[in-house]
């Protein structure tokens, strides 16, 4: 460790090393009350300590960065020699993360030598790519014409009321993501709804509550 604390306050520093933010603030406030200001030696110690903590956090960040970089490099290597590979790489990234995280898009921009704006231009053009993380569970209502004629509108309204969110949003507890989709091609069983990858056909508005209850129950058992 590069910081070598002065011998006089060694014990307090040792204590501080394991102190969390609340304790540090508490200590500073006490010092302030006692002296009317924060003594130089305490502020120095805290500064050193922050340096240490930051260094640790930076290492975590670095680790994350290398992981992201390695991931992105793998995806890029797979498609390196292909022309027009951007969309396929974005598909691979979305399959991995469930959405396209900002850091990954930035790394991809560096790796491919393509401007970030151009990557976002593509991401935002296509409905399939998401910039927000999906919920733990996904409820998707098909809004193809066959489903529309057979009452998908009522299903969407029911879900809106039950979940308190609009299509394309996630419940505040990040548990259920609700969206609509153009057509899942199951017109034979309209109106259709996809709950966590499982397609349910001939859904009635009265079934919606049951499906949601199942999802919530799943969440609790998982927790």
């Amino acid at each position, binding site marked *: 460790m590069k910081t070598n604390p002065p011998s006089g306050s060694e014990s307090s520093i040792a204590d501080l090393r394991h102190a969390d933010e609340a304790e540090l603030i508490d200590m500073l406030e006490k010092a302030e009350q006692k002296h009317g200001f924060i003594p130089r030696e305490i502020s120095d110690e805290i500064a050193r300590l922050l340096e240490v903590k930051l260094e640790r956090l930076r290492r975590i960040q670095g680790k994350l960065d290398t992981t992201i970089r390695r991931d992105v490099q793998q995806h890029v290597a797979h498609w390196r020699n292909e022309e027009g590979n951007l969309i396929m790489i974005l598909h691979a990234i979305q399959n991995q993360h469930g959405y396209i995280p900002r850091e990954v898009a930035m790394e991809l921009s560096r790796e491919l030598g393509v401007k970030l704006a151009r990557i976002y231009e593509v991401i935002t053009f296509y*409905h399939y790519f998401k910039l927000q993380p999906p919920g733990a569970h996904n409820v998707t209502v098909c809004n*193809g014409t*066959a489903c529309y*004629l057979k009452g998908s509108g009522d299903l969407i309204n029911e879900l809106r009321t039950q979940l308190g969110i609009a299509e394309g949003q996630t419940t505040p507890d990040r548990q259920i993501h609700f969206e609509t989709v153009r057509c899942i*091609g*199951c017109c034979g069983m309209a109106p259709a709804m996809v709950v966590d990858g499982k397609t349910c056909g001939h859904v009635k508005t009265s079934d919606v509550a049951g499906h949601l209850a199942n999802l919530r129950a799943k969440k609790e058992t998982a927790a």
Partner: protein
Amino acid sequence: MKTLTRQDLAALAAQPAAAPAEWIRVQLDTGGIAAGAETLFTALDHARLEHRLPFALQRTGSTGYAFADPVVEVQTVGLPRVHYGHMMPELAPQLIESHFTHRRLLDDHVIATRRRSLVLDAPVTHILVRDTGNGPGSKTEFFQFSFQEELKRRGLADRVQVVRAFDMGIYDEGAVVQLLPSAVTYTNVLAPDVARIITESIEAGKVLDDLLWKTSDKQVRIVLRHCGEVDPDSVDDYLRRAEGYQAFARALFELTPEQVIAEMKVSALRGRGGAGFPTWMKWQLTRAQPATQRYVICNGDEGDPGAFMDRSVLESDPHTVLEGMLIAAYAMGSSQGYFYIRAEYPRAVERIQRALDQAREIGLLGQNILGSTFSFDAKIRLGAGAFVCGEETALIASIEGKRGSPSPRPPYPSVRGLWGMPTAINNVETLAIVPAILLKGGAWYAGHGTETSKGTKVFAVTGKVRNAQLVEVPMGTTLRQIVFEVCGGVLDNKEIKAVQTGGPSGGVIPASLLDTPVSYETLQQLGSIMGSGGMLVMDKGDSMVEVAKFYLRFCVDESCGKCAPCRIGGYQLLQILDRISRGRGNAGDLAIIHRVCHAMQKASLCGLGQTAPNPVLSTLRYFGEEYQAFIEGGPSYARKVSGAAKAAKAPAPATTQEVSS
């Protein structure tokens, strides 16, 4: 698997593989799997192992009976080959027991064969019965009982089984009876006919001419010829059982590229993606363009809501599409192809990928295919949910990894397409037809259909229809025949109001024009288009203003925003429609709608904007009084209509719930 040679293919052609005597085919397409076909497959597999039964359990794609998912087809010794619909996983043990222990067909699940015979060429072993009438109370059980009693009386009960069918493919024709295995079908059978059928047909082997159903099935399966027959995951199955890659071998070794194109010209096949451009001409133009590289693209970006033909073909018969692409590539002198498929169709993507891997493994893709000088490879590119990417130039931009914005034509893709090279974009259905044309000849294909529109067309009939399914009919079949004869008419016997074809780019066709024969030209005259083949049935309860709004909202959402007529015109149109549907429209609105629509049609850059007004214009043309009623009736009328629509929908769940509880 080792690399295939020309001799191997010739040997396969000369000697088709022996099929196992007993098999069960489970139809595992997206619809089937959603209905539980995977679970059913596992259950059947368990039962097979448990009882050590020798039958082969096979995976196939879908025949097209979407209304009956999950569907299985069963062939057992001593029993006719049958399709079963609504075969829920829990019925697996029952199916196995019935077929392999008792050697009997299951009641209430049989989908009768559409191949109907006029002659009794084999002794009757099974009688299918179903009351197809609309009257209250089904008489199916009564007829089953009458037949059984009569057979018992004559001591024939062990020889002939009477089975209640699930679907006969004939509707509103009273009690329908089908004699298996010959598939002689009688309609409007009355109680006194039972004894007569048994005496004449079963005992004496004569056909009763007065009851005989002579109308042959409207469907002709060319595109769907292998769907539900072959295992989509096995190139071996395709090679052995479906004359796989024989058409390609014929093109490669017996024909020059010019001859292939000439054969296509004879067939007069027109692109099945919607616009109907002659396929041979597209190939010819691409071939004629001097270039170092040419590309073939299979357009599987089926974005129309309510259409699932391409998905079904890709999932059920991927090798046929690939074979079609190989032939197209050979004819055009291309060495690289792309499948552009929606990412929303994961199963289609998976199966095409597997087909490509298998073809590469046995040397049907790669350098010097089958020892010839022809080299070709194909890759998959995923769509990412943009309807506009079905448009050629937008699709090309998307494959290049860019935003899918269309660009002005000319230059057409056949001159300057993918990466500036000549490119031919063919629809999935078009490519699936190509091998059939090369095997059977262009003249054979041109024998189907009408003067200007040859061949057959697959439609996905959905909406308020009794049996939502894939239908393949020759061009020139009327809409009424498709909706009523093939699909059984409107759901719950309501009155039909209109049929919508062509998805968001198409228009509605009112009930009064249902006798129009389907072809590119006739549909266009009616203000609709053929499109890729979505066909939606609407009943009296559906408000046309709402339908127009639904489609228009779709196009507004999907507009790429590049050109003003589509971006601004679509939005303004939607605002006006919304105002009208809330009863706040005014007398001048209809004139403005016409003007905006006209501007969009004339000035938009690509097909999306040019056709986006179609649903509005066609509803206005045929159901103008509905718009008038909204405008004249004001907000109170609008509330009444939307209230009535809600009230009409509301009781349905309540009653079904009562039944289930």
